[in-house]
């Protein structure tokens, strides 16, 4: 048996012994574990599952062990992913710390910063939020105006952020601030600070789906220790962009997981439209469903190919923008198509006669509209591909 096969066998046995049965079922949105000081576990199994995975370093299996990770190789990571998906194991922990901040901190952080923040992210003890967008700086992110002034031993931060997802639950924020007003991209720095610092105030905003996932974040004379600057002073833009790459990868993935308990298009189409023999009677919708599931397949083959190419060192750039663009647009198409198949059954807002699944479907359809806005809009992804991949001029 090769070392990798050995690893697979051990992993399988361990998961089988340690992943609670309820953690092998599709996850409703409200059972998602985000960790942090105010962590909530609606299902007690998810706490157990998190603790067991933390002990193995498998909330962040690819990070070095010194920072709370599992120290797995690429191949081992792939095996773990395959085995978890084969058993239907839920991810034990979701966090912007894992998917966004961690990777850039590993690259740009000082040893002290890594040791301070990464293990807490790995253990789900700190929940992070992302302070990028401002009222006047959305797609044109580098136009951001929140100021950080040098006060000797600390920075004094003043300004306003908006669309800060889960700012009202987060413990810490990674925040883009302006430290030089004479240039645009070159005057931005990357700061970390505690959300309980005096001067930080958050106000939730309600979404079209009725949920409230993001906030306005007001920053008034917030004191941030100098040691919380990541990378160089005025060197934040490079870090910010790199983090966006990780974010885009996550959003195109999460497209699938936010739908969580909403099944695939073909399953839903069959449920509402199938004849006795299982065939979708309406030929136009049948064609649309086929197109959709075929694009899903082509997309998952493309992600697989990208992974294999990056392993072989033959990858071409620009894939994260392509994945963000296609994954989110495809997710929106998914819900629009399910809505067409389910008709008015998918348009209930609350109560009878709608099933839980139908009500979730409607809310999730609305939430999916944000996928192609958050993390850089689809139009911005097209701009990035045109410029970086195709070399088309401004």
């Amino acid at each position, binding site marked *: 048996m090769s070392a990798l096969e050995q690893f697979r066998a051990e992993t399988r046995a361990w998961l089988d012994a340690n992943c609670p049965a309820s953690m092998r079922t599709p996850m409703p949105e409200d059972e998602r574990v985000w960790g942090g000081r105010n962590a909530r576990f609606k299902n007690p199994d998810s706490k157990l599952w998190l603790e067991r995975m933390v002990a193995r370093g498998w909330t962040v299996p690819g990070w070095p062990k010194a920072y709370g990770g599992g120290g797995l190789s690429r191949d081992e990571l792939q095996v773990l992913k395959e085995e978890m998906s084969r058993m239907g194991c839920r991810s034990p922990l979701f966090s912007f710390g894992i998917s966004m901040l961690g990777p850039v901190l590993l690259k740009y952080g000082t040893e002290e910063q890594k040791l301070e923040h990464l293990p807490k992210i790995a253990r789900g003890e700190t929940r992070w939020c992302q302070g990028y967008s401002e009222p006047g700086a959305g797609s044109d992110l580098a136009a951001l105006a929140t100021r950080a002034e040098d006060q000797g031993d600390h920075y004094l931060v003043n300004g306003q952020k908006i669309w800060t997802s889960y700012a009202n639950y987060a413990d810490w924020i990674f925040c883009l601030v302006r430290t030089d007003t004479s240039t645009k991209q070159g005057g931005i720095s990357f700061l970390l600070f505690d959300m309980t610092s005096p001067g930080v105030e958050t106000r939730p905003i309600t979404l079209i789906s009725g949920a409230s996932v993001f906030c306005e974040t007001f920053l008034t004379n917030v004191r941030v220790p100098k040691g919380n600057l990541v990378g160089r002073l005025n060197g934040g833009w490079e870090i910010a962009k790199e983090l966006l790459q990780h974010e885009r990868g996550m959003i195109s993935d999460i497209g699938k997981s936010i739908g969580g308990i909403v099944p695939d298009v073909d399953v839903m189409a069959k449920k509402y439209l199938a004849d006795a023999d299982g*065939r979708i009677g309406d030929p136009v919708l049948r*064609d649309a469903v086929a197109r959709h599931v075929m694009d899903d397949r082509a997309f998952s083959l493309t992600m697989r190919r990208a992974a294999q190419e990056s392993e072989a060192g033959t990858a071409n750039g620009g894939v994260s923008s392509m994945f963000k663009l296609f994954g989110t647009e495809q997710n929106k198409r998914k819900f629009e198509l399910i809505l067409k198949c389910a008709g008015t059954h998918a348009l209930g807002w609350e109560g009878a006669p709608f099933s839980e699944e139908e009500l979730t479907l409607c809310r999730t359809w609305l939430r999916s509209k944000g996928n192609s806005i958050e993390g850089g809009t689809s139009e911005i992804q097209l701009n990035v591909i*045109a410029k970086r991949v195709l070399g088309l*001029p401004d």
Partner: protein
Amino acid sequence: MNLTLNDEQTMLKNGAHEFFKERMPVKALRELRDKDVADGFDRALWAEMAALGWAGILIPEQFGGADFGYKGMGQVMEEAGRSLAASPLVASAALAAPLLLKAGSDAHKQALLPALANGEVLLALAHDEAPRHAPTRIATRVEQGAQGLVLNGCKTFVVDGHVADHFIVVARSSGERDARDGLTLLLVDAEAPGVSVTRTRMVDNRNAALVSFTDVVIGADALLGKVGEAHGALTAALDGARALLAAEMLGNACEAFERTLAYLKLRKQFGAVIGSFQALKHRAAHMFCELELTRSAVLGALDALDNGHADSAALCSLAKAKACDTLELVSAEAVQMHGGIGMTDAEEIGFFLKRARVAQQWLGDASFHRDRYASLMGF
């Protein structure tokens, strides 16, 4: 599933790229058309391709082939697609020869495969009867007559039928028009009495034929496989050819796209290169994504064919459908983004559009394959 190329496949692809670029550029296709070459392709160049082993990539070594697999063949096809190289590579080497291999007896294989592998013999599949691909819509009949089996019927769009030495004919021995059962494969000499072949010139400057069979007497040795049981082997061979044609179409689309991209960076209007206009940039970026998805679908199908993947039928339909949609988009946008120049015969971009539409129809267009995929998936 492996969606990358190994070193040998990469070498084959690079070699094919050079060959088609040097020896069979789009200019060569134009010459075939302008000189009205009766064969519709250049036999000397076909002999060179065969000498490189490409006619026999899908033929086992014991029958004189290179046995290099679908992924290998796909690389040659993609490069052929880039330069719109006209040759019997798809019709004979990618479709008819593998069908003979799947359905024929050892005697058939020994008699024909070595000559197919070295390019001396050309084989064509006489299949479609309707304007749109419909694999079981067969009215051509084979029946027991006084001196053996007798074949009657008419086939349309027999690609490279005008140069084929033999046909594999799909005939109905029993059953209703669209039935899967009752299809029989026959190996028929193009010179046999009662066979009539009429060359048809297609918009892509390549050739197909109308082939009719009138009371053609068929010897018992002409049966490929069992009477009435052709469907399995036929479908498998069609699927292989669909994936390979999709590879050709991918090459066509990539080349048309790259030429268009180059033009976007060159042509100036309103004091700027037109590639700086966002309306064009976004369409170009969209095409890039579709090309990437198509490449993955094609590689997925080729890999599945080489490994006998249980799902290869669905993956071949995915590859062909994706190639059809993407090439339809890219070839039309390529002409549009070239402006007036794109409408001229002197500019080569129109050749890509013409080949695109013929390749889309051949072996099933996107809606054919979506319908098939839906059936395979049980909806």
